[in-house]
């Protein structure tokens, strides 16, 4: 340690790293450990009972099902939107480009009530869907709509820079070798974009799984039908069932950690495939 220290020209290593580790421990690590310790004190039987009651199981199905479908929809349309933003010029393009980040900037509660107003029976969109017999607000379909809203920028913003960096030469080479436009896309562009597209998909999915604010207004929160898993934690807390809330939180945290590892792996793959850092 002392040997390497003498090679450091720049000052402040001890101070900055010490501060970083202390603050990280106080704000993030120690409170997170508290969740696992609390869950550990619960006993295995209690824990399993808490995380596998019918209402909680139904919430997993909704949360993961809706998150998966929303992420898939966002992957398809997010790729198209990123493509349009990179490859075409059209009026209002800069506005569209800036507003893609709206779900990052708009507080989730605001998004939640706006979507509910839009898709309720008397709302602009709800009114159009009502004659078709489609009810969105206060059904699982509403959850899906909210999760699409929240996840879209993840796909667009991970794919967009990769598309921008793409040199035209590869596609030109493909065409000069006799490929048509679709073949050039499928065999030249798509493989380059694929890791970023999967990263965007995984990020949108991970965000959707934990999402709370934008969903609870439009979901209607009907037990066994339209309750999401984060809401189950809130419900347990409101009943002063701290142990039950913690048990569900542990399940969610473990899933988050797995998704985080998957996303890190995908990002490394993207960097390798495209020669881009991060």
């Amino acid at each position, binding site marked *: 340690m002392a040997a*390497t220290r003498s090679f450091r020209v*720049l*000052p402040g290593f001890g101070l*900055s790293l010490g501060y970083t580790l202390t603050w*990280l421990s106080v*704000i*993030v690590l*120690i409170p997170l450990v508290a*969740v696992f310790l*609390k869950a550990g004190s619960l006993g295995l039987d209690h824990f399993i009972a808490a995380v596998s009651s019918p209402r909680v199981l139904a919430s997993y199905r909704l949360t993961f099902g809706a998150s998966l479908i929303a992420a898939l929809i966002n992957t398809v*349309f997010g790729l*198209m*939107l990123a*493509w*349009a933003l*990179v*490859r*075409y010029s*059209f009026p209002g393009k800069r506005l569209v480009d*800036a*507003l*893609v980040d*709206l*779900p*990052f*900037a*708009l*507080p*989730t*509660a*605001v998004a939640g*009530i*706006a*979507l509910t*107003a*839009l898709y309720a029976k008397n*709302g602009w969109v709800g009114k159009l869907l009502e004659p078709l017999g489609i009810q969105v607000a206060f059904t699982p379909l509403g959850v899906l709509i909210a999760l*699409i809203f929240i996840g879209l*920028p993840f*796909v667009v*913003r991970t794919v*967009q*820079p990769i598309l921008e960096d793409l040199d*035209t030469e590869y596609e030109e080479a493909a*065409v*000069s070798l006799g490929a048509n*436009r679709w073949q050039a896309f499928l065999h030249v562009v798509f493989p380059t974009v694929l890791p970023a597209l999967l990263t965007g998909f995984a990020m949108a999915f991970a965000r959707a*799984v*934990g999402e*709370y*604010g934008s969903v609870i*207004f439009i979901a209607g929160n009907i037990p066994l039908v339209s309750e999401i898993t*984060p809401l189950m*934690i*809130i419900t347990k*807390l409101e009943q002063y069932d*701290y142990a039950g809330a913690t048990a569900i939180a542990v399940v*969610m945290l473990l899933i*988050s950690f797995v998704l985080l590892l998957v996303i890190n792996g995908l990002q490394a793959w993207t960097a390798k495939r495209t020669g881009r850092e*991060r």
Partner: protein
Amino acid sequence: MSGAAAVFHGSADHAARFESKAATREPALVKWGILAVSLSFFAIFLLLPLITVFVEALRKGWDVYFAALIEPDAWAAIKLTLIAAAISVPLNLVFGVAAAWAITKFEFRGKHLLITLIDLPFSVSPVVSGLIYVLVFGAQGWFGPWLSEHDIKVVFAVPGIVLATVFVTFPFVARELIPLMEAQGRDEEEAAVVLGARGWQTFWYVTLPNVKWGLLYGVILCNARAMGEFGAVSVVSGHIRGQTNTMPLHVEILYNEYQFAAAFAVASLLALLALVTLVIKTWVEHQAGKASQQSEE
């Protein structure tokens, strides 16, 4: 992970490069098809909800709108939101700079693990983020008995709200700075130190000018999330009107009381904040794009 995709990139129009060549141009029909589908999707899922906020807010006229904003509970909520952001943003700014300095200017073992741990709050559900502080500082938590003995309230009070806000905005500044300072390298700083600059001078005159746009970018996103956080704050707040309600929580209460116009009026302030955030963000990207072009010339 939220905000993770908002990684800093300069603005530049690439369309001309692709549209000028036959090999990278789609048939007109395909082009208009893609534009029509993607822009409709954008309009329905992003634009329409934004417009709805303002239309609903003004549905009952300007009088009701302003009445909802000057009501004492709304004022208290606005004040608390500003306080929470005013504390948590500077804390995370200092942390982000320290973390980026340690990570990018020095070599040490476990660096990648450290970066992953800093990113961790993004991948935790907001509700869980709130819960962890209830478990540490709540009545039944680790420090609960000690805190109540000394008559200190953390959970269901302002300190809990600040803590939850710090947690959810934890990675914002660090994650913008780390890739940027990594790309800058350490040659300039080392030269400054060799020429006799002190540590702070080096940071202030060499590092900061190089990363100022990325720093501003991180701070803006951090602030937007701090003011808009709902789930985490909702768990630790206790929803005491006029005392522990932030603006997003106030919106929820009004909405649940069927005071829709008032709820959307307060929501419209938050939507304006989001729009201002996006405008500054676009401007910063533009500035950074210009700066990087200049340095390449």
